[in-house]
């Protein structure tokens, strides 16, 4: 995990360097913005991994004698089968189709997205399949 953090932070340093070179060669605000934020993309992942690595004991990939199975913890609860993603997907499709068709379809679609998302979020919090 520490190596992963270093890789991402190194990426951030590289993109910052490229952004500086790009700015002095082009004075283009749009491209420089995109490059600086690419450094942000890499940097925020690297920063999070570094902070997390420092809060945890050494991970298997930090130890020379680490085994692959050690990096395979209990992943928690996963849904074996669910219609909820398809329902949210259809509701999202209706919402975005509304952008091309009519404003009221967007409003109706947004309500459907919230309703289907609620079904997804609470699927294992009620009924016969209740887990939590």
């Amino acid at each position, binding site marked *: *995990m520490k190596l992963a953090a270093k890789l991402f932070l190194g990426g951030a340093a590289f993109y910052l360097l490229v952004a500086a070179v790009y700015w002095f060669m082009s004075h283009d*605000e*749009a*491209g420089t*913005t*995109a490059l600086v*934020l*690419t450094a*942000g*993309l*890499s940097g*925020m*992942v690297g920063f*999070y*991994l570094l902070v*997390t690595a420092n*809060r*945890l*004991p050494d*991970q298997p990939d930090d130890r020379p004698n680490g085994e692959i199975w050690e*990096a395979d*913890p*209990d*992943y*928690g*609860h996963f849904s074996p089968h669910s219609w909820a993603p398809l329902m949210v997907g259809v509701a999202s499709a209706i919402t975005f189709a509304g952008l091309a068709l009519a404003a009221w379809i967007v409003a109706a679609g947004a309500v459907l997205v*919230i309703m289907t*998302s*609620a079904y997804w*979020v*609470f699927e294992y*919090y*009620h009924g016969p399949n209740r887990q*939590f």
Partner: protein
Amino acid sequence: MTQAHPGAHPVHPNKTAVGTIIWLSSELMFFAGLFAMYFTLRATNPEVWAEETQFLNVPFSTVNTLILVSSSVTCQLGVIAAERGDLRGMQRWYILTFVLGAIFIGGQVYEYAHLIQAEGLTLSSSPYGSAFYLTTGFHGLHVTAGLVAFLFVIARSYASRRYGNEQATAAIVTSYYWHFVDVVWIALFFMIYVLQ
């Protein structure tokens, strides 16, 4: 060897939290496109910018920004409560965060209504209108989605029979999202209202 949330005494990184951060880094690139668009239109239409940035009510937006920033503080206090396993504390702070976020969105709607009615600035009226509404509008949609996420987290914490890792993880990753959207707003505020 149980998977613990960042607040307990975990042995392994929380996969949901790592996944959320990686997703947020892609969200950063989504906003990078919007920032780049704003700077491109600004560089090619300096006269439109000189005239239409005067429509902005900077003191009003500053107050609104302070409300959003303070909601990040209350959100983090909720996370601290969640990490302690203090369910009631988490619920109270998250409800307050929700209210502050809703006030921010209300302020933004008020600002839009004023700009459209009094100044005639719309999405299609000028390059400045397009840049202003697309950047602040997409951010506003993100805040609104965050408000819905807060409702889900709060409602789920009431619905669950026991307060476990699932609820704490949901509360913590929602706070990551909220802080991210808050930081993006600070950058947007600097670009639109300070730099203009």
